[in-house]
């Protein structure tokens, strides 16, 4: 049970289940684990920048999602990222939105 929130059992999300070093490991390979989390944050921020949001790691246990004006939410895993992002920006985060797709395509050019 989490001593902070009292939730029975840890929150598990399917995105955590990759066999790369540092994803499953909890008690060793701490550098790999940190590197993996840093990569997640980097990849997420590439998508989130279009919504004016920034994700940061919080003590290797959670993530903090923030707006440019400082509003923020703590999330446990990527499963909570997009609902929180929509709450913070007040609009949908839709990967099928044409403008958004075009912007993501543009990052690969040049």
């Amino acid at each position, binding site marked *: 049970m989490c001593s902070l929130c009292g939730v029975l059992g840890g929150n598990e999300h399917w995105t955590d289940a990759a066999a790369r070093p540092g994803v499953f490991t909890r008690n060793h390979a701490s550098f790999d684990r940190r590197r993996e989390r840093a990569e997640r944050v980097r990849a997420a921020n590439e998508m989130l920048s279009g919504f004016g949001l920034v994700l940061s790691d919080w003590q290797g246990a959670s993530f903090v999602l923030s707006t440019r004006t400082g509003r923020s939410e703590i999330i446990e895993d990527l499963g909570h*990222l997009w609902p929180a992002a929509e709450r913070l920006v007040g609009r949908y985060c*839709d990967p099928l939105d044409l403008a958004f797709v075009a912007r993501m395509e543009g990052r690969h050019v040049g």
Partner: protein
Amino acid sequence: MSVEASGFLPINLLTGFLGSGKTTLLKRILADPAFADTAVLINEFGEIGLDHDLVESVDGEMVLLRSGCVCCTVRDDLATALKELYSRRERGLLPPFRRVIIESTGLADPFPVLSTIKADPVLRHHFCAGNVITTVDTVNGLRQLDTYIESNRQVAVADRLIVTKADLEADSKGDSLRARLRTLNPDAPILTAADPNLDLSSLVAVQSDVSPSGSLSQSGFYCEEPVRLVSSDGVPHQAAISSISLSIDRPVDWTAFGLWLTMLLNRHGERVLRVKGILNLNGEERPVAVHGVQHLVHTPVHMDGWPSEDRSSRLVFILDGLDGALLKRSFEAFTLAHMPVVASCQIAAAR
């Protein structure tokens, strides 16, 4: 690791349209000694029409079948019934069943059952989602698929499709039905209830228990290419339900894929009826199989090896009203830097 070895009890869901033969199939399963270690949940006990000489009473709500199956009615909600079932098993009040089958009479959409298992903090430590088995009636199946979206959704989320009443209709009608089923759900094996060689145990066999070489999928494990369905004037049907198959011949980044898919399911989960595939991941020798139904994505399976020489990632999406071409473009933009999806992208309209 097999489901059995993992310690989780798989919950298989038996669904299908009204009159499609769910109960007949269930009775056949229950009479099979191979399913003796199965607990069965049904909505209303009376509906199964079990003969009295097949069962003996355990108490007011549960019965023990002659085959050894435990049968229980869903009186309140599913989570309560499953917890009670597990509690009795642990206390030795019921035989130590190894799987559960739920007949989903009255539940057009299997998703609530699957999400119940995943969302409940107690259940998810004891149970896991097994196969969705969908029965389709040869006599009425095509008409139901033309008429009812529920029927389409039941077929789309199936892991096993069982064609029933094939002996009552001409072969041509059966062939048409199979073609439709294959379009709606490119990957699920299509079995025939009337087949004397039908192996009932294959209905509940989980994918991770199947060796890559001994695949149940007609395509050789996961992701058969969908059939392109073209109308008489050569224009693809504008379909509510469609499938799209992606083949990517270079490694996929797991983090980017996870971010993209969680974003897609958060916004369109109810319209992504199914996603299933095998991925070649960056930095990973073995393939990873992913499988999701609407908002629910099962824990990815790290497979022992590749089913063939082909090392490309393959993904099948079954969509309800979403634009498959746009989804492909979005997948490329979010998960693949510089290199497009090269091998193939087929979009098959189903209705």
